[in-house]
């Protein structure tokens, strides 16, 4: 009988752990909802931060993440293709491991690195530096997804292409990538969601701006960095704005995330 009681206790504790995990998610989401919806107005989307709105920050964050994607996605995909399709032996294996390690590298370190190469030499924060920092974060994530999605494509498809006389890169671009398209799309969306919510790499690279400034040579408006600044200000109005911004940011990130998952689910 004792064994059965221990078993029951164990199962109860496991279920409790799952409830704790869900509880934290719910707690954070409810907090964001209550605080965020309360301070949400249409005017937030029409005014810039100088006038108490968030328009420039939302646009700026999306531009930063979008440009980082424009650099990081093709580079990461082509690198992933090398590792899976071209790489022979140790070097490809080494790069794969290295990119896995880089995926977990502290984001503040990447910020400091980009500060040293792209901010300090040019005399001040600029949007380019932020884009570089975010794309460095994105590349290993994309490599990882591309690599694992390509590994799911059956070898026969490649052989069929080669047998038809297609050159290897044609086979890769026209057959292998097409077959892995959905999986890679999901990975790309998840990677985009992840870097869109990053703060640390932007803190001293692109910083943030109160104005609707879209010149990448100057400090660039960022939603996340401004949340950090606003949340640490003593005025209640600043904090309300920070909550509204947090709500918008989280919804953006979670929606992209869920869309990504929904795409893969449909495929199955």
């Amino acid at each position, binding site marked *: 009988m004792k064994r059965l009681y221990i078993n029951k206790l164990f199962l109860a504790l496991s279920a409790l752990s*799952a409830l704790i995990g869900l509880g934290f998610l719910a707690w*954070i989401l409810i907090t*964001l909802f209550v605080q965020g919806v309360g301070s949400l107005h249409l005017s937030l989307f029409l005014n810039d931060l100088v006038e108490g709105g968030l328009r420039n920050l939302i646009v700026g964050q999306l531009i930063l993440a979008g440009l980082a994607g424009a650099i990081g996605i093709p580079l990461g995909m082509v690198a992933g293709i090398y590792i899976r399709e071209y790489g022979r032996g140790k070097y490809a294996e080494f790069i794969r491991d290295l990119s896995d390690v880089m995926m977990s590298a502290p984001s503040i370190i990447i*910020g400091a*690195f980009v500060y040293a190469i792209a901010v300090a030499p040019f005399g001040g924060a600029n949007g380019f530096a932020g884009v570089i920092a975010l794309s460095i974060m994105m590349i290993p994530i994309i*490599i990882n997804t591309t690599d694992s999605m390509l590994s799911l494509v059956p070898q026969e498809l490649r052989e069929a292409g080669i047998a038809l006389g297609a050159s290897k890169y044609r086979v890769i671009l026209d057959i292998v990538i097409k077959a892995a398209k959905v999986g890679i799309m999901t990975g790309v969306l998840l990677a985009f969601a992840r870097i869109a919510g990053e703060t640390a790499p932007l803190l001293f690279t692109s910083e943030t701006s109160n104005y609707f400034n879209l010149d990448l040579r100057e400090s660039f408006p960022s939603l996340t960095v401004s949340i950090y600044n606003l949340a640490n200000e003593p005025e209640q109005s600043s904090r309300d704005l920070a909550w509204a911004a947090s709500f918008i940011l989280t919804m953006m990130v979670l929606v992209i*995330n869920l869309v990504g998952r929904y795409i893969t689910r449909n495929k199955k």
Partner: protein
Amino acid sequence: MEKIFQKLSFSSASLVLIILIGIFFTLFSAAKPAIEEFGLHFLGDPTWNQEVRLDTAPAATAVADDTIADEDDMMMLDEDDEDSVNTKTVFGGLVPIIGTLLSTLIALAFALPIAMGIAVFLAEMASKTVSKFVGIAIELLAAIPSIIFGMWGLYYFAPIISDLFGGFQVSLLTAGLVLGIMILPFMAAITRDSMNTTPDVLKESAYALGATKFEVVKDIIFPFSKVGIIGSIILALGRALGETMAVAFLIGAVYTIPEKITDPTISIPVAMAVNFGEASGLGESSLFYLGLILFVLSFGIISFAKFYFLKRVKS
């Protein structure tokens, strides 16, 4: 075209290597002034940005020798004394290093049992539908930006913790606990995946012998997936070391060694995030020194986990 594409893909892959080497050397050369100035003594020095008198003795003897000097000369000597000739600003990394390690330890201690419980629940207890739903929810927890954890932690979680345990609202404890919540999904997911690699035959034969679920997990699944679980713990540790924004809200960002777990302190990423803006010269270089330490530490821990533990899971 074939050749071009192959070259292109090779160079993109090599970019990873180049970036990593670039990070290391950039951090190293930016940290060099501080490394030359403080050496390894930096690791054990708890002072940060404090003026220390270098050689007060010669100044004192100079005054003593010059007893017949008139008032004006004395004034000039005093001014010389306050000049930077005899003082230097000292930076030491001990406090942020301790803060980083302790907050990570608290996070691990908090997250470990819960993550194991979640993994068991997902892998062994819940029905397929429930497991999928809870699994997605836990992964969404991982998708929430860290700055949100920071704000929520500061305004909602910290007051409760300081009511329960006393002490400051921003402290090592609150930072560690929120850090624990953040690594929870990550740890749970990898542990679940390694538990799922246990062959059904093994589990079924144990059940056939009349084992309870607890005994199957303890005696069959856990020994089988042990290596992967340890790997996931170390990987989570590597992640927690470098987490910046959430900890920046919660740890207090003061350069004092915490006497109690509820005292505020600072961690390496937070030191970089908070002080980088106003730092210059030796201060900035010292921050890069801290960054180099963090980079080497997390790089070592993560590659150890990847190569030693998780590799063996794959094969």
